[in-house]
Protein backbone atom coordinates (compact mmCIF):
# COMPACT_ATOMS: atom_id res chain seq x y z
CA UNK A 1 0.00 0.00 0.00
CA UNK A 2 2.78 2.42 0.99
CA UNK A 3 4.57 1.67 -2.27
CA UNK A 4 1.39 2.31 -4.21
CA UNK A 5 0.84 5.64 -2.47
CA UNK A 6 4.43 6.71 -3.17
CA UNK A 7 3.96 5.86 -6.84
CA UNK A 8 0.76 7.89 -6.96
CA UNK A 9 2.49 10.83 -5.22
CA UNK A 10 5.31 10.85 -7.78
CA UNK A 11 2.87 10.60 -10.64
CA UNK A 12 0.72 13.37 -9.16
CA UNK A 13 3.70 15.72 -8.88
CA UNK A 14 4.80 14.88 -12.40
CA UNK A 15 1.29 15.45 -13.65
CA UNK A 16 1.03 18.83 -11.94
CA UNK A 17 4.38 19.91 -13.32
CA UNK A 18 3.35 18.88 -16.81
CA UNK A 19 -0.01 20.60 -16.55
CA UNK A 20 1.53 23.81 -15.24
CA UNK A 21 4.15 23.81 -17.96
CA UNK A 22 1.56 23.15 -20.61
CA UNK A 23 -0.74 25.91 -19.39
CA UNK A 24 1.96 28.55 -19.44
CA UNK A 25 1.68 29.21 -23.13
CA UNK A 26 4.84 29.69 -25.12
CA UNK A 27 3.56 32.85 -26.64
CA UNK A 28 1.19 35.44 -25.35
CA UNK A 29 0.08 38.62 -27.12
CA UNK A 30 2.11 38.36 -30.27
CA UNK A 31 1.70 41.43 -32.38
CA UNK A 32 3.60 43.86 -34.54
CA UNK A 33 3.24 46.26 -31.64
CA UNK A 34 5.11 43.91 -29.35
CA UNK A 35 7.88 43.57 -31.88
CA UNK A 36 8.05 47.32 -32.17
CA UNK A 37 8.26 47.69 -28.40
CA UNK A 38 11.21 45.34 -28.23
CA UNK A 39 13.03 46.64 -31.27
CA UNK A 40 12.66 50.32 -30.66
CA UNK A 41 13.20 50.09 -26.93
CA UNK A 42 16.42 48.19 -27.47
CA UNK A 43 17.70 50.57 -30.10
CA UNK A 44 16.82 53.78 -28.31
CA UNK A 45 18.41 53.07 -24.95
CA UNK A 46 17.43 54.67 -21.68
CA UNK A 47 17.12 58.29 -22.73
CA UNK A 48 14.51 60.94 -23.41
CA UNK A 49 14.21 59.50 -26.84
CA UNK A 50 13.03 56.29 -25.26
CA UNK A 51 9.72 58.00 -24.61
CA UNK A 52 9.46 59.19 -28.20
CA UNK A 53 10.40 55.78 -29.48
CA UNK A 54 7.83 54.23 -27.15
CA UNK A 55 5.22 56.56 -28.60
CA UNK A 56 6.21 55.38 -32.02
CA UNK A 57 5.79 51.75 -31.07
CA UNK A 58 2.40 52.52 -29.56
CA UNK A 59 1.44 54.23 -32.78
CA UNK A 60 2.39 51.06 -34.60
CA UNK A 61 0.29 48.97 -32.25
CA UNK A 62 -2.72 51.25 -32.05
CA UNK A 63 -3.65 51.02 -35.68
CA UNK A 64 -6.96 52.19 -37.00
CA UNK A 65 -9.76 49.71 -37.47
CA UNK A 66 -9.05 49.28 -41.17
CA UNK A 67 -5.35 48.78 -40.57
CA UNK A 68 -6.10 46.11 -37.98
CA UNK A 69 -8.64 44.23 -40.04
CA UNK A 70 -7.10 44.30 -43.48
CA UNK A 71 -5.22 41.08 -44.14
CA UNK A 72 -1.73 41.16 -45.68
CA UNK A 73 -3.26 39.76 -48.87
CA UNK A 74 -5.84 42.56 -49.10
CA UNK A 75 -3.17 45.12 -48.24
CA UNK A 76 -1.17 43.77 -51.17
CA UNK A 77 -3.98 44.49 -53.65
CA UNK A 78 -4.48 47.92 -52.12
CA UNK A 79 -0.75 48.62 -52.40
CA UNK A 80 -0.66 47.58 -56.05
CA UNK A 81 -3.57 49.85 -56.90
CA UNK A 82 -2.07 52.80 -54.99
CA UNK A 83 1.28 52.31 -56.77
CA UNK A 84 -0.48 52.16 -60.16
CA UNK A 85 -2.34 55.37 -59.25
CA UNK A 86 0.89 57.16 -58.32
CA UNK A 87 2.39 56.02 -61.63
CA UNK A 88 -0.41 57.86 -63.41
CA UNK A 89 1.01 61.06 -61.98
CA UNK A 90 4.69 60.21 -62.28
CA UNK A 91 6.20 58.05 -65.02
CA UNK A 92 8.56 55.24 -64.03
CA UNK A 93 12.26 55.59 -64.76
CA UNK A 94 13.46 52.66 -66.81
CA UNK A 95 16.99 52.41 -65.45
CA UNK A 96 17.61 48.70 -64.75
CA UNK A 97 20.90 49.09 -62.86
CA UNK A 98 19.59 51.93 -60.72
CA UNK A 99 16.32 50.17 -59.91
CA UNK A 100 18.14 46.95 -59.11
CA UNK A 101 20.50 48.79 -56.78
CA UNK A 102 17.55 50.45 -55.07
CA UNK A 103 15.90 47.06 -54.56
CA UNK A 104 19.02 45.48 -53.04
CA UNK A 105 19.44 48.42 -50.70
CA UNK A 106 15.76 48.73 -49.85
CA UNK A 107 15.20 45.05 -49.20
CA UNK A 108 18.24 44.98 -46.94
CA UNK A 109 16.82 47.88 -44.94
CA UNK A 110 13.36 46.30 -44.76
CA UNK A 111 14.83 43.29 -42.95
CA UNK A 112 15.41 45.56 -39.96
CA UNK A 113 11.94 47.13 -40.02
CA UNK A 114 9.17 46.22 -37.60
CA UNK A 115 7.41 44.58 -40.56
CA UNK A 116 10.20 42.76 -42.42
CA UNK A 117 7.81 40.59 -44.41
CA UNK A 118 4.76 41.71 -46.35
CA UNK A 119 2.55 39.58 -48.61
CA UNK A 120 4.90 39.81 -51.60
CA UNK A 121 7.85 41.63 -50.01
CA UNK A 122 9.17 45.16 -50.54
CA UNK A 123 9.59 46.54 -54.05
CA UNK A 124 11.27 49.78 -55.10
CA UNK A 125 11.01 51.88 -58.26
CA UNK A 126 12.44 55.21 -59.40
CA UNK A 127 10.01 57.83 -60.75
CA UNK A 128 11.17 59.90 -63.71
CA UNK A 129 10.63 63.40 -62.37
CA UNK A 130 12.64 66.32 -61.03
CA UNK A 131 10.05 66.74 -58.29
CA UNK A 132 11.26 65.93 -54.79
CA UNK A 133 8.88 63.15 -53.89
CA UNK A 134 8.54 59.60 -52.59
CA UNK A 135 5.71 57.24 -51.66
CA UNK A 136 5.53 54.23 -49.41
CA UNK A 137 2.37 52.46 -50.57
CA UNK A 138 0.79 49.67 -48.49
CA UNK A 139 2.39 46.24 -48.54
CA UNK A 140 5.79 47.64 -49.50
CA UNK A 141 5.49 49.33 -52.90
CA UNK A 142 8.00 52.18 -52.59
CA UNK A 143 8.41 54.84 -55.29
CA UNK A 144 11.17 57.48 -55.19
CA UNK A 145 11.73 60.38 -57.58
CA UNK A 146 14.97 61.12 -59.41
CA UNK A 147 14.75 64.62 -57.97
CA UNK A 148 14.87 63.29 -54.42
CA UNK A 149 17.62 60.76 -55.15
CA UNK A 150 19.77 63.57 -56.57
CA UNK A 151 19.75 65.26 -53.16
CA UNK A 152 21.56 62.29 -51.61
CA UNK A 153 25.34 62.60 -51.39
CA UNK A 154 26.05 59.02 -50.33
CA UNK A 155 24.56 55.54 -50.04
CA UNK A 156 23.77 56.26 -46.40
CA UNK A 157 21.58 59.17 -47.47
CA UNK A 158 19.76 57.11 -50.11
CA UNK A 159 19.22 54.53 -47.36
CA UNK A 160 17.71 57.27 -45.19
CA UNK A 161 15.19 58.17 -47.92
CA UNK A 162 14.15 54.54 -48.40
CA UNK A 163 14.06 53.85 -44.64
CA UNK A 164 11.59 56.72 -44.16
CA UNK A 165 9.25 55.20 -46.76
CA UNK A 166 9.69 51.73 -45.24
CA UNK A 167 8.65 53.38 -41.97
CA UNK A 168 5.38 54.52 -43.55
CA UNK A 169 4.76 50.99 -44.88
CA UNK A 170 5.64 49.12 -41.69
CA UNK A 171 3.60 51.46 -39.50
CA UNK A 172 0.70 51.06 -41.96
CA UNK A 173 0.24 54.78 -42.44
CA UNK A 174 -1.43 54.28 -45.82
CA UNK A 175 -4.16 52.13 -44.30
CA UNK A 176 -4.67 54.69 -41.56
CA UNK A 177 -5.69 57.17 -44.25
CA UNK A 178 -8.84 55.16 -44.93
CA UNK A 179 -11.78 56.95 -43.37
CA UNK A 180 -13.87 55.08 -40.82
CA UNK A 181 -17.04 55.42 -42.90
CA UNK A 182 -15.27 54.13 -45.97
CA UNK A 183 -14.01 51.09 -44.13
CA UNK A 184 -17.42 50.40 -42.59
CA UNK A 185 -18.91 50.27 -46.08
CA UNK A 186 -16.05 48.15 -47.38
CA UNK A 187 -16.49 45.68 -44.52
CA UNK A 188 -20.17 45.36 -45.38
CA UNK A 189 -19.37 44.69 -49.03
CA UNK A 190 -16.66 42.21 -48.09
CA UNK A 191 -19.16 40.28 -45.97
CA UNK A 192 -21.72 40.28 -48.78
CA UNK A 193 -19.13 39.20 -51.28
CA UNK A 194 -18.02 36.37 -49.03
CA UNK A 195 -21.59 35.12 -48.88
CA UNK A 196 -22.31 35.39 -52.61
CA UNK A 197 -19.12 35.71 -54.57
CA UNK A 198 -20.67 34.70 -57.86
CA UNK A 199 -23.00 37.68 -57.84
CA UNK A 200 -21.70 40.28 -60.28
CA UNK A 201 -23.65 43.09 -58.61
CA UNK A 202 -21.89 42.33 -55.35
CA UNK A 203 -18.54 42.29 -57.14
CA UNK A 204 -19.44 45.68 -58.59
CA UNK A 205 -20.20 47.10 -55.16
CA UNK A 206 -17.06 45.64 -53.66
CA UNK A 207 -15.00 47.09 -56.51
CA UNK A 208 -16.57 50.48 -55.84
CA UNK A 209 -15.64 50.16 -52.16
CA UNK A 210 -12.12 49.16 -53.17
CA UNK A 211 -11.94 52.25 -55.37
CA UNK A 212 -13.07 54.47 -52.49
CA UNK A 213 -10.38 52.98 -50.24
CA UNK A 214 -7.71 53.58 -52.91
CA UNK A 215 -9.04 57.11 -53.34
CA UNK A 216 -8.62 57.89 -49.64
CA UNK A 217 -5.06 56.60 -49.55
CA UNK A 218 -3.98 58.16 -52.84
CA UNK A 219 -5.45 61.54 -51.88
CA UNK A 220 -3.55 61.53 -48.61
CA UNK A 221 -0.28 60.34 -50.12
CA UNK A 222 -0.29 62.46 -53.28
CA UNK A 223 -2.24 65.57 -52.34
CA UNK A 224 -2.72 66.30 -48.66
CA UNK A 225 0.10 64.38 -46.99
CA UNK A 226 0.24 62.48 -43.71
CA UNK A 227 -0.08 64.27 -40.38
CA UNK A 228 3.01 65.70 -38.74
CA UNK A 229 2.83 62.96 -36.12
CA UNK A 230 2.89 60.20 -38.73
CA UNK A 231 5.78 61.87 -40.56
CA UNK A 232 7.71 62.12 -37.30
CA UNK A 233 7.00 58.45 -36.56
CA UNK A 234 8.29 57.45 -40.01
CA UNK A 235 11.38 59.62 -39.44
CA UNK A 236 12.10 57.99 -36.08
CA UNK A 237 11.56 54.51 -37.49
CA UNK A 238 13.93 55.39 -40.34
CA UNK A 239 16.61 56.48 -37.91
CA UNK A 240 16.24 53.23 -35.97
CA UNK A 241 16.42 51.12 -39.15
CA UNK A 242 19.55 52.98 -40.31
CA UNK A 243 21.17 52.37 -36.95
CA UNK A 244 20.25 48.69 -36.78
CA UNK A 245 21.48 47.92 -40.29
CA UNK A 246 24.70 49.83 -39.74
CA UNK A 247 24.19 53.05 -41.69
CA UNK A 248 24.78 56.48 -40.18
CA UNK A 249 21.54 57.44 -38.34
CA UNK A 250 22.46 61.09 -39.01
CA UNK A 251 22.04 60.56 -42.75
CA UNK A 252 18.33 61.44 -42.66
CA UNK A 253 19.06 64.82 -41.10
CA UNK A 254 21.63 65.50 -43.84
CA UNK A 255 19.10 64.70 -46.57
CA UNK A 256 16.54 66.97 -44.94
CA UNK A 257 19.11 69.78 -44.80
CA UNK A 258 19.88 69.28 -48.50
CA UNK A 259 16.16 69.31 -49.24
CA UNK A 260 15.38 72.52 -47.36
CA UNK A 261 16.63 75.06 -49.92
CA UNK A 262 15.32 73.05 -52.87
CA UNK A 263 11.65 72.90 -51.91
CA UNK A 264 9.54 75.52 -53.64
CA UNK A 265 6.71 77.04 -51.58
CA UNK A 266 3.43 76.00 -53.13
CA UNK A 267 5.08 73.14 -55.03
CA UNK A 268 3.17 69.93 -55.59
CA UNK A 269 5.88 67.67 -54.15
CA UNK A 270 7.29 67.34 -50.61
CA UNK A 271 6.62 71.05 -50.05
CA UNK A 272 2.92 70.24 -50.15
CA UNK A 273 2.77 66.89 -48.41
CA UNK A 274 5.47 67.03 -45.75
CA UNK A 275 6.23 69.19 -42.73
CA UNK A 276 8.94 71.80 -43.10
CA UNK A 277 12.38 70.06 -43.09
CA UNK A 278 13.61 72.38 -40.31
CA UNK A 279 10.88 71.09 -38.01
CA UNK A 280 11.75 67.50 -38.82
CA UNK A 281 15.46 68.11 -38.35
CA UNK A 282 14.91 69.57 -34.90
CA UNK A 283 13.09 66.51 -33.64
CA UNK A 284 15.49 64.05 -35.27
CA UNK A 285 18.93 65.37 -34.45
CA UNK A 286 18.92 64.29 -30.81
CA UNK A 287 17.43 60.89 -31.61
CA UNK A 288 20.07 60.24 -34.25
CA UNK A 289 22.92 61.33 -31.99
CA UNK A 290 21.86 58.85 -29.33
CA UNK A 291 21.97 55.94 -31.76
CA UNK A 292 25.65 55.73 -32.58
CA UNK A 293 26.83 52.74 -30.63
CA UNK A 294 27.68 50.27 -33.39
CA UNK A 295 31.31 49.95 -34.52
CA UNK A 296 32.26 52.34 -37.33
CA UNK A 297 32.61 50.99 -40.85
CA UNK A 298 36.09 50.41 -42.20
CA UNK A 299 37.48 52.67 -44.90
CA UNK A 300 37.15 49.81 -47.39
CA UNK A 301 33.48 49.28 -46.53
CA UNK A 302 32.70 52.98 -46.87
CA UNK A 303 34.57 53.05 -50.17
CA UNK A 304 32.54 50.07 -51.41
CA UNK A 305 29.27 51.79 -50.48
CA UNK A 306 30.28 55.00 -52.21
CA UNK A 307 31.49 53.22 -55.35
CA UNK A 308 28.32 51.20 -55.87
CA UNK A 309 26.11 54.20 -55.12
CA UNK A 310 27.91 56.31 -57.72
CA UNK A 311 27.87 53.50 -60.28
CA UNK A 312 24.13 52.88 -59.87
CA UNK A 313 22.68 56.32 -59.22
CA UNK A 314 25.34 58.63 -60.63
CA UNK A 315 23.22 59.29 -63.71
CA UNK A 316 19.85 59.80 -62.08
Amino acid at each position, binding site marked *: *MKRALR*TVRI*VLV*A*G*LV*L*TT*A*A*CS*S*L*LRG*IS*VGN*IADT*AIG*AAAGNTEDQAKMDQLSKAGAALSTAAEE*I*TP*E*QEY*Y*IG*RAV*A*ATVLRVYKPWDGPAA*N*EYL*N*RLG*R*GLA*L*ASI*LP*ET*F*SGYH*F*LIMDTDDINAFGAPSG*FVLVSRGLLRLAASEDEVAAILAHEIGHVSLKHGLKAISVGRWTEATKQLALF*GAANSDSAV*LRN*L*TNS*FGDVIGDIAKTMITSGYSRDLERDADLEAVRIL*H*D*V*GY*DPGALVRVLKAMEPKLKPGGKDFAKTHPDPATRIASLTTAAQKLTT*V*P*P*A*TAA*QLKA*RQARWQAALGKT
Partner: protein
Amino acid sequence: MRHTLRFSALLLLLAAAAAGAADQKQMTVTVQQTDVRATAGYLAKSLGTLVYGDKVTLLDQPANAPRGWVKVLGPDKKLQGWVNLSALTAKDAQLTAGGNVKKSASSGDVALAGKGFSSDVEAQYKQDQKLDYTWVDKMQAFPVTPQQVAAFLAQGGLSEQGGAQ
Protein backbone atom coordinates in the same frame (compact mmCIF):
# COMPACT_ATOMS: atom_id res chain seq x y z
CA MET B 1 -7.03 -0.27 -4.40
CA ARG B 2 -3.69 -0.35 -6.14
CA HIS B 3 -5.35 -0.61 -9.56
CA THR B 4 -7.63 2.31 -8.78
CA LEU B 5 -4.73 4.51 -7.81
CA ARG B 6 -2.71 3.56 -10.86
CA PHE B 7 -5.69 4.24 -13.10
CA SER B 8 -6.24 7.66 -11.51
CA ALA B 9 -2.60 8.55 -11.94
CA LEU B 10 -2.71 7.49 -15.57
CA LEU B 11 -5.76 9.66 -16.17
CA LEU B 12 -3.96 12.62 -14.64
CA LEU B 13 -0.96 12.13 -16.90
CA LEU B 14 -3.18 11.85 -19.94
CA ALA B 15 -4.99 15.04 -18.96
CA ALA B 16 -1.68 16.83 -18.60
CA ALA B 17 -0.53 15.62 -21.99
CA ALA B 18 -3.81 16.70 -23.56
CA ALA B 19 -3.49 20.14 -21.98
CA GLY B 20 -0.04 20.42 -23.47
CA ALA B 21 -1.23 19.47 -26.93
CA ALA B 22 -4.13 21.92 -26.78
CA ASP B 23 -1.85 24.70 -25.65
CA GLN B 24 0.51 24.32 -28.62
CA LYS B 25 -0.33 27.44 -30.51
CA GLN B 26 -1.20 27.14 -34.18
CA MET B 27 -0.40 30.00 -36.52
CA THR B 28 -1.02 30.56 -40.22
CA VAL B 29 1.33 31.89 -42.90
CA THR B 30 0.03 35.21 -44.29
CA VAL B 31 2.66 35.96 -46.91
CA GLN B 32 3.05 34.40 -50.33
CA GLN B 33 6.18 32.56 -49.29
CA THR B 34 8.61 32.51 -46.37
CA ASP B 35 11.66 30.46 -45.50
CA VAL B 36 12.13 28.35 -42.40
CA ARG B 37 15.62 29.21 -41.16
CA ALA B 38 18.22 27.17 -39.30
CA THR B 39 18.78 30.04 -36.86
CA ALA B 40 16.85 33.19 -36.07
CA GLY B 41 17.71 35.65 -38.83
CA TYR B 42 17.08 36.34 -42.50
CA LEU B 43 20.64 35.60 -43.49
CA ALA B 44 20.58 32.14 -41.89
CA LYS B 45 20.42 28.94 -43.96
CA SER B 46 16.98 28.08 -45.37
CA LEU B 47 15.73 24.63 -44.34
CA GLY B 48 12.53 24.76 -46.35
CA THR B 49 9.71 26.99 -47.50
CA LEU B 50 6.23 27.73 -46.23
CA VAL B 51 3.51 29.22 -48.41
CA TYR B 52 0.35 31.25 -47.81
CA GLY B 53 -2.17 29.42 -45.69
CA ASP B 54 0.24 26.83 -44.25
CA LYS B 55 -0.43 26.03 -40.60
CA VAL B 56 2.52 25.87 -38.26
CA THR B 57 2.84 24.92 -34.61
CA LEU B 58 4.62 27.37 -32.40
CA LEU B 59 7.37 25.58 -30.50
CA ASP B 60 9.35 28.30 -28.79
CA GLN B 61 9.98 32.02 -28.51
CA PRO B 62 13.12 32.35 -26.41
CA ALA B 63 13.52 35.66 -24.65
CA ASN B 64 17.04 35.99 -26.04
CA ALA B 65 16.01 35.40 -29.68
CA PRO B 66 16.30 38.32 -32.10
CA ARG B 67 13.16 40.42 -32.26
CA GLY B 68 10.15 38.78 -33.85
CA TRP B 69 11.70 35.34 -34.39
CA VAL B 70 9.97 32.17 -33.23
CA LYS B 71 10.65 28.47 -33.62
CA VAL B 72 7.94 26.54 -35.47
CA LEU B 73 7.04 23.08 -36.66
CA GLY B 74 5.86 22.93 -40.26
CA PRO B 75 2.58 21.42 -41.50
CA ASP B 76 4.38 18.17 -42.41
CA LYS B 77 5.42 17.85 -38.74
CA LYS B 78 9.02 17.41 -39.91
CA LEU B 79 10.23 20.81 -41.06
CA GLN B 80 11.38 22.66 -37.95
CA GLY B 81 13.14 25.98 -37.64
CA TRP B 82 12.84 29.76 -37.29
CA VAL B 83 10.29 32.08 -38.87
CA ASN B 84 9.65 35.79 -38.36
CA LEU B 85 6.30 36.66 -36.81
CA SER B 86 5.61 39.22 -39.52
CA ALA B 87 4.89 36.27 -41.83
CA LEU B 88 2.39 34.67 -39.45
CA THR B 89 -0.96 35.34 -37.87
CA ALA B 90 -2.73 33.74 -34.95
CA LYS B 91 -6.06 34.89 -36.39
CA ASP B 92 -7.05 32.04 -38.63
CA ALA B 93 -10.38 33.73 -39.39
CA GLN B 94 -8.54 36.58 -41.13
CA LEU B 95 -7.53 34.39 -43.99
CA THR B 96 -10.88 32.80 -44.57
CA ALA B 97 -12.63 36.15 -44.40
CA GLY B 98 -10.14 38.00 -46.53
CA GLY B 99 -9.35 35.58 -49.27
CA ASN B 100 -10.14 32.07 -50.27
CA VAL B 101 -6.81 30.92 -51.63
CA LYS B 102 -5.61 27.93 -53.52
CA LYS B 103 -1.96 27.05 -53.71
CA SER B 104 -0.36 26.65 -57.07
CA ALA B 105 2.33 24.02 -56.77
CA SER B 106 3.78 24.84 -60.16
CA SER B 107 4.50 28.51 -59.63
CA GLY B 108 5.09 28.42 -55.89
CA ASP B 109 2.82 31.41 -55.94
CA VAL B 110 -0.65 31.76 -54.57
CA ALA B 111 -3.61 31.72 -56.89
CA LEU B 112 -6.20 33.97 -55.40
CA ALA B 113 -9.74 32.91 -55.93
CA GLY B 114 -12.77 34.91 -55.32
CA LYS B 115 -13.21 36.67 -52.04
CA GLY B 116 -12.35 40.06 -50.62
CA PHE B 117 -9.97 42.57 -52.18
CA SER B 118 -8.48 40.03 -54.52
CA SER B 119 -7.46 39.47 -58.13
CA ASP B 120 -11.13 39.56 -59.20
CA VAL B 121 -11.62 42.99 -57.66
CA GLU B 122 -8.30 44.19 -59.03
CA ALA B 123 -9.25 43.07 -62.55
CA GLN B 124 -12.58 44.91 -62.33
CA TYR B 125 -10.99 48.03 -60.84
CA LYS B 126 -8.22 48.04 -63.44
CA GLN B 127 -10.81 47.90 -66.21
CA ASP B 128 -13.03 50.59 -64.65
CA GLN B 129 -10.16 53.01 -64.06
CA LYS B 130 -8.16 52.10 -67.17
CA LEU B 131 -5.25 51.73 -64.77
CA ASP B 132 -1.93 50.50 -66.09
CA TYR B 133 -0.27 47.92 -63.82
CA THR B 134 2.65 47.19 -66.17
CA TRP B 135 5.27 48.84 -63.98
CA VAL B 136 3.75 47.56 -60.77
CA ASP B 137 4.24 44.06 -62.15
CA LYS B 138 7.76 44.98 -63.25
CA MET B 139 8.54 46.30 -59.76
CA GLN B 140 7.62 42.93 -58.32
CA ALA B 141 9.71 41.12 -60.89
CA PHE B 142 13.05 42.93 -60.38
CA PRO B 143 15.52 40.07 -60.17
CA VAL B 144 16.94 40.50 -56.68
CA THR B 145 17.60 37.34 -54.68
CA PRO B 146 18.01 37.05 -50.89
CA GLN B 147 21.60 35.96 -51.55
CA GLN B 148 22.25 39.18 -53.46
CA VAL B 149 20.79 41.23 -50.60
CA ALA B 150 23.01 39.36 -48.13
CA ALA B 151 26.08 39.97 -50.30
CA PHE B 152 25.14 43.64 -50.69
CA LEU B 153 24.92 44.07 -46.92
CA ALA B 154 28.17 42.21 -46.27
CA GLN B 155 30.09 44.24 -48.86
CA GLY B 156 29.07 47.48 -47.16
CA GLY B 157 29.81 46.24 -43.63
CA LEU B 158 26.09 46.10 -42.92
CA SER B 159 23.79 43.58 -41.31
CA GLU B 160 20.10 42.99 -40.73
CA GLN B 161 20.82 43.00 -37.01
CA GLY B 162 23.40 45.73 -36.67
CA GLY B 163 26.47 46.32 -38.77
CA ALA B 164 29.24 48.83 -39.02
CA GLN B 165 28.39 52.44 -39.48
